[in-house]
């Protein structure tokens, strides 16, 4: 700690010199590679996830091109299977989850008044493992032969990986091995992050920041992290079982030896349904922050929204078999899971009404973040309601494996999660980059994405209801599928255009001269009390919190009719740069051991597929990383 500072003046000079050096080391590629700063890790998570978003989007466009016309010939059946598997896997594990993790990283410490997360190096480890897992998974494309001649080697059994399709007999080649090992690596990343954020939120809140003064986003981070640390072990075991079957001839899913493929489905969906909420709860948290700011009203029914989130998390453990109605579980099981699935719509509905009530009567400022948040509410509501339609067992029997299901989950994961995440990107972008995104381009992106989204996915609802099965690479003409498939493909390109607008916006804004203000939206939570971009140490002095939306209350008092009136000389003014400029604040040292440890994992995974000797090398790298990490002082 900064123990010597009071003792001698020269120590202060020394500390200042050190800090200048540290600040200087905030430049250059090496400072990013060794960073343990939650904001930089958050930015790396975000940029990487958006890169994978573009990759997964290109895969989606290939799918839509193939299906644009009957008897499409853009992709071979084999390529199609690999592309749609990688599209789903990428979008879920390499886009929505890490993009949510980006916001956990960027916001959690700021919102609770902390200088960093509880375990900064573990946090860096999470990011590097995520990157390693994503690259490892996509490396599978190169294992099929000559990729330039279209010989892809990626997994081809769907993102759900149903046994026995995934077994060696039906999925020869290394694709599924890469898939299973890649998901195991990504699981390590998610679990490490989950532990980190739970400990951070439970242990590192500023004085006065009680649990029920935490911003809703922090609550959703906490709930999501609990879901992650309890759901991931289940898929971990399932993936190990699959790998033992594939690599070492075990019998978990081998029907010849009495195994049952249903074991996979139970394990996968016992993980998979909490996973659905792992994907959507962070976006719900973001929307719950954006709406109050742009309606200039507190979130309506804050405790109800919190408890609804908790209720959703608990109930998400009791609904998994609604993915399995048609597997013959029997009437009693189907009815029970049907009821639990209908019930989980209640807390979700509570949230939707709370968001609408937040907007109701507010002085609404229509900016891009609000547009995306409102788009989230509308699209997610449709997605949620279509979900209720297949909680009803007989109805689901008709919908199972049709495009109606595809439409439903894109409605919640794109119309929900992605819209919510873009609301967050536009909202917090100035806080971490110091630049505002252009409002005009932002609105253009929103409207093209919103229209493109509906043009893409509403036709899929119709396609599903008139009987088009999912996971098919082609369909014959003249069955009523032609026109709607073409429409969906046009919509997909409109979405691609909207993403292009976003990329242009990012590039254009980076050339902006004017710096973003500390509090451009008149925000309510603690991060807006800090300069943009936030300095490495976050808070010069750890704040003391007196209320929910504390920063708002520093800026505004209420008049007798409950309307906000600015506090004279309130906290909204920018703090003076000179006053206590952060010298002597002790921050964790950079470290390259998290990267080394993370590098070991894909090496081990490669070795498991190809050669035990490589496993030994990977294990050695991992050990070097772990021991170096354990023995280096966390702080100087």
């Amino acid at each position, binding site marked *: 700690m900064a123990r010597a500072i009071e003792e001698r003046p020269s120590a202060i000079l020394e500390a200042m010199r050190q800090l200048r050096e540290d600040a200087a080391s905030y430049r250059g590629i090496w400072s990013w590679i060794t960073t343990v700063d939650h904001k930089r890790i958050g930015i790396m998570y975000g940029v990487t996830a958006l890169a994978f978003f573009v990759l997964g989007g290109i895969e989606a466009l290939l799918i839509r091109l193939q299906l644009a016309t009957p008897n499409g010939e853009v992709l071979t059946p084999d390529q199609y299977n690999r592309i749609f598997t990688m599209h789903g896997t990428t979008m879920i594990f390499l886009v929505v989850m890490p993009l949510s993790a980006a916001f956990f990283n960027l916001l959690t410490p700021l919102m609770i008044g902390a200088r960093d997360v509880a375990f900064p190096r573990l946090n860096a480890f999470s990011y590097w493992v995520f990157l390693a897992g994503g690259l490892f998974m996509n490396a599978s494309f190169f294992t099929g032969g000559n990729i330039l001649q279209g010989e892809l080697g990626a997994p081809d059994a769907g993102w759900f990986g149903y046994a026995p399709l995934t077994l060696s007999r039906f999925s020869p080649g290394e694709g599924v091995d890469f898939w299973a090992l890649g998901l195991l690596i990504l699981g390590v990343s998610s679990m490490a992050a989950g532990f980190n954020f739970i400990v951070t939120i*439970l*242990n590192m809140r500023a004085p006065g920041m009680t649990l029920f003064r935490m911003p809703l986003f922090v609550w959703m981070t906490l709930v999501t992290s609990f879901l992650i640390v309890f759901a991931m072990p289940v898929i971990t075991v399932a993936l190990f079982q699959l790998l033992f079957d594939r690599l070492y001839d075990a019998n978990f899913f081998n029907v010849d*030896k009495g195994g049952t493929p249903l074991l996979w489905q139970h394990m996968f969906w016992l993980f998979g349904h909490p996973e659905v909420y792992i994907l959507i709860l962070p976006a719900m948290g973001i929307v719950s922050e954006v709406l109050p700011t742009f309606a200039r009203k507190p979130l309506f029914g804050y405790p109800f929204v919190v408890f609804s989130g908790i209720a959703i998390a608990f109930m998400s453990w009791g609904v998994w078999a609604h993915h399995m109605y048609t597997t013959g579980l029997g009437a009693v099981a189907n009815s029970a899971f049907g009821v639990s699935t209908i019930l989980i719509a209640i807390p979700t509905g509570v949230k939707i009404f709370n968001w609408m009530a937040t907007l109701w009567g507010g002085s609404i400022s229509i900016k891009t973040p609000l547009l995306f948040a409102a788009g989230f509410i509308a699209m997610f509501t449709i997605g949620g309601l279509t979900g209720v339609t297949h909680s009803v067992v007989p109805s689901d029997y008709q919908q199972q494996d049709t495009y109606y299901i595809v439409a439903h989950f894109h409605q919640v994961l794109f119309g929900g999660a992605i819209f919510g995440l873009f609301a967050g990107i536009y909202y917090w972008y100035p806080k971490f980059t110091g630049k505002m995104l252009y409002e005009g381009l932002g609105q253009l992106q929103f409207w093209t994405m919103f229209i493109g989204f509906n043009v893409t996915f509403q036709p899929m609802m119709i396609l599903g209801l008139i009987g088009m099965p999912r996971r098919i690479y082609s369909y014959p003409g003249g069955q009523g599928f032609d026109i709607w498939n073409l429409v969906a493909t046009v919509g997909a390109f409109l979405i691609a255009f909207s993403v292009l607008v976003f990329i242009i916006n990012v590039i254009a804004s980076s050339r902006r001269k004017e710096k973003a203000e500390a509090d451009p939206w008149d925000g309510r939570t603690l991060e807006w009390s800090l300069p943009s971009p936030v300095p490495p140490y976050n808070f010069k002095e750890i704040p003391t919190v007196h209320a929910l939306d504390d920063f708002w209350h520093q800026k505004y008092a209420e008049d007798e009719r409950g309307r906000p009136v600015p506090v004279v000389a309130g906290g909204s003014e920018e703090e003076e740069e000179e006053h206590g400029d952060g010298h002597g604040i002790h921050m964790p040292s950079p470290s390259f051991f998290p990267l080394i440890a993370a590098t070991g994992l894909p090496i081990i995974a490669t070795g498991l597929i190809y050669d035990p000797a490589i496993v030994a090398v990977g294990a050695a790298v991992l050990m070097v990383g772990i021991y170096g990490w354990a023995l280096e002082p966390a702080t100087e």
Partner: protein
Amino acid sequence: MQHAPALATNTGLDNRKLLMWLFLASECLFFGSLIGAYLLYRDRSVAGPYPEDLFDIPFTSVSAFILLMSSVTMVLALAAIQRGDQHGLRVWLFTTAFLGILFVSGQAFEFTEFNREGLSLSTNLFGTTFFVLTGFHGAHVTVGVLILMSLFVMALRGRLTRAESLHVELAGLYWHFVDIVWIVIFTLVYLIQP
């Protein structure tokens, strides 16, 4: 209790200790899933050898007893460091690690023996679920032994002082958890035969 000096936390629990508790909680689901798969496939093997042909209950009882005793020595190691008894710390850390190695060796012997009698990972569902479940437990014990040996080396070099007793406490939490999992496995897999 003595802890390494740490910043005050909201729960009063050291960050690292809270992390360990959360990790162990998630491990419950890991082993729960493995045990669930074992129980689901019990009696579903279409060919032998079956558990009753292979299990040597007295032998496994002894190795289970050894693992349980290692929890006692683990407690003694923690008590030693907390009262500043460096000699006791080294003795009990080493004893705990040694008992752990003894347990893993017993498991290796058992695996070899079963294998000699015709049970492999691919023989039947029993082989598959048994080896994977107990193998993952053995791997956890092995990781525990590595942690204990690392602590032992640190203690030998005098780098594990009373102020760092938390390291021993965390290793202890992990170690006791692995023991408890074995109690569950031993009971469900070995003792309760249908």
